[in-house]
């Protein structure tokens, strides 16, 4: 049986700006499904992805109220991936760069994520089989 792999992802895009955040979550989720432990270092705008105060809203154009629209915010996707990792017995360690959090005022992050620093990124890299940076362009 092969040894469990650990992957690190460093992401920088804020929510609702482009498809890279979704791509990152797809990769993170798939890595967990395939038995990897995953570290995430959220840097710059990506620290807003798990911001706890994100809220769904009604959509008049779609003629649906908030419940019918059933629109998961990024924090909800992240919570779901965290829950999936826990259920599978995999580790998902999500670290938000603390200075980036302070600059953006998004300190209220969902449970299962934590505040850290670039030193955590270095620890992740050293302990991982591979690291993927998904930068803002």
């Amino acid at each position, binding site marked *: 049986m092969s040894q469990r792999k650990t992957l690190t992802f460093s992401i*920088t895009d804020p929510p609702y700006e482009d498809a890279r955040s979704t791509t990152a979550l797809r990769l993170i989720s798939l890595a967990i499904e395939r038995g990897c432990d995953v570290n995430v270092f959220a840097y710059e705008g990506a620290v807003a992805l798990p911001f706890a105060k994100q809220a769904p809203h009604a959509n008049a154009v779609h003629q649906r109220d908030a419940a019918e629209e059933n629109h998961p915010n990024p924090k909800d996707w992240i919570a779901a991936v965290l829950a999936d990792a826990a259920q599978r017995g995999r580790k998902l360690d999500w670290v938000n760069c603390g200075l980036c959090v302070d600059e953006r005022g998004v300190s209220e992050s969902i449970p299962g994520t934590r505040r850290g620093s670039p030193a955590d*990124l*270095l620890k992740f890299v*050293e302990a991982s089989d591979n690291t993927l940076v998904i930068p803002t362009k």
Partner: protein
Amino acid sequence: MSKKILSIVETAYRGTLEEQDDTVLWLNHVLNGAGAEVSVLLQGNAVNYAVKGQDASGLAFGGRQQTQPPKLDRDVSTLAQKGVSVLFVEDDATERGILLADLVEGVEPIRRAALPRLLAGYDQIFHW
């Protein structure tokens, strides 16, 4: 033994006025301080980060003035002074009319054709 990291900076001047620096150069300063064996490659528009004498001062809105504007040439130079290998893609500099004499001390040119060999010498490539 720590992993050798090459950090490729390509997207330039993204949020630098708001941040008062480049977040990726900043990150590499911190990683170096934390003991990482990191090198930096300036590529594409980011080769301009090494051009000395940049002046981003003067930003003001209403009565609020920016007093600590980004100094990217300084941040590149201090990385090199800390012993970090800072390279730039010579072809990208030439295409932009940037001469070696325009650049801060301590940065080293590398031809685009030599990049595969350079990249092969690192354990991790962070392409920002």
